[in-house]
Every structure is written in C-alpha cells, then in structure tokens.
C-alpha cells in the first residue's frame, strides 16, 4: 500500500457541565459514592444494557462496567478514583473501550458546593463536572476515511434541509 501508516489521531476536549440541585450537599455526594444510590441513577440510557463488574468508590478503588445496545455489551468503562473529599469532590480517571479498540481516556472532576449563604443549613447544591478527555479516532484507512466523508456529508445534508440557522 502506498499510503503511509498514520496511526490513530487524538483529539482533546474539556467538557464542563453544571447543575443546581434542590438537595443538601451530603445527599448529592452520597448519590455518587454509596453503591446502592449510584446504581439508581448512573446507568446507560436509551434501553441499553449494562453489567457492573465492580463498584468501589474510594481512593484507589475501581469501577468497571460493560454496556451497549440490547444484546451487545460492546463498550467497557473502567474508572479509577484518585481523590475523594467528603461532600466536596470526586476526581477520577477512566477509559472507554469499544471491544478491543480504546476510544477515550479521561480525567474527570466532580465538585459539590453548597449554594446559598450558610453551608450547614442549605438545601441547595451546585454541582460541576469537568471532564478532560483524549478521544482516539480510528479512521486510519481509505475505506474508513471514505465512510467518514459520507457521514460528514450526511450531516451536511441534514443541516441544509433544516434551513436557516442551526
């Protein structure tokens, strides 16, 4: 093949998501760290299936889940908790695999802060999730690049048929 091997490209992104919850900080924190609580909200959506291999929320502890469309547990997320400050912060790293292809490596910080004047009396909590991620792109051969162009043109089609501002 005349094409030199380029390998997979990497793209970096920082994702920041903020929310305010009508609940005290210790409940928000507990929702992240107490296994029974965590399992009640932190599950894949859209009818996807998941299997939890491990859930160990403490410094040095690991989570591991497999998930995917029904009948296809193709993705795996492995998390390692690096820093936990009660009622304040979780800091963890995680990788996502699609089969045997690494898709992303992330450093994620979850910050929990009382919203409102008196930290001891508030029932309002601000939450900030900051994820710094490296995403790996697997389109490193002509067929995949052609597929990438087709998908880009699909998106362009969709945008143009919507008309006006996107």
């Amino acid at each position: 093949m005349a094409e030199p091997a380029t390998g997979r490209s990497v793209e970096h992104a920082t994702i920041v998501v903020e929310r305010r919850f009508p609940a005290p900080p210790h409940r928000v924190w507990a929702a992240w760290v107490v296994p029974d609580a965590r399992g009640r909200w932190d599950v894949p959506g859209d009818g996807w299936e998941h299997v939890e291999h491990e859930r160990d929320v403490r410094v040095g502890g690991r989570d591991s889940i497999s998930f995917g469309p029904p009948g296809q547990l193709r993705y795996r997320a492995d998390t390692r908790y690096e820093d936990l400050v009660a009622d304040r912060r979780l800091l963890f790293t995680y990788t996502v695999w699609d089969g045997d292809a690494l898709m992303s490596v992330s450093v994620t910080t979850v910050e929990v802060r009382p919203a409102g004047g008196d930290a001891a009396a508030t029932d309002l909590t601000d939450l900030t999730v900051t994820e710094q991620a490296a995403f790996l792109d697997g389109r490193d051969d002509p067929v995949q690049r052609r597929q990438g162009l087709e998908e880009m043109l699909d998106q362009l089609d969709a945008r143009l048929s919507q008309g006006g501002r996107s």
Partner: protein
Amino acid sequence: MVRQVPNHVVPHSTGSVDGVFRALADPSRRSMVERLTRGPASVGELARPLAMSLPSVLQHLAVLEGAGVVRSHKAGRVRTCQLQPAALGTAGDWISARRADWDRRLDALATYLAQPGPEVGADG
C-alpha cells in the same frame, strides 16, 4: 462518485465543524477530499480531474486547509496534500455524545434526588 449536495452557503456560526461544512459545500472541494480519502496527492493530481486552473485549485486548497480538513507541505516544486484524520473522524461526534451523556446522567441524578430518600451518608 461523490454525492451531490445543494450548493448554497451554509449559515454562519462559530466552530470548526461549520468550517468543515462550509469547505464541503463546494462540489470541487468535495471531489478533492474524496480523492484524498484514497491517499495523499500532489496539487497537480488533484487538479487533473477538475479541468480547473491551478490558481483556482490552490484557492480551493486554501479553504480546505483553513478548515483543517487538509494539510499540505512543499518538497522542492511539488506540493503534496493529505487529509487531516480528525476532520472526517469520529472524535467530534464522540465529544458531542459524551457531553450529551453527561446531560442525561445529571438529569437522572436530579430525578433521583427529587425523590425522598433515606438519609444515607458515605462511609468516607
């Protein structure tokens, strides 16, 4: 054969994805990009099937490079062009999907917190 897309200006907004869309909204540039999916090419090789003047090809190339779809380098008198892998790749999709997934998870957290729960505390 590269598909046909309505050839009118994509509405302006900020962001590199729209730069890529604007770059691809031109059929000659789409032809050039399609050729480059098969591997690197010189400017001359890109120009040949387009029956277009070299300055015009270079102008299209400048748009593609400005959008980050293509990069080129000159060795001697030959300028060689190749696709930037990330431009047509899945990374941008995954970034959007990851953000959407956080929105979904935090919506679920909000729903969970809205339900009366036992006063559970962490072990620390």
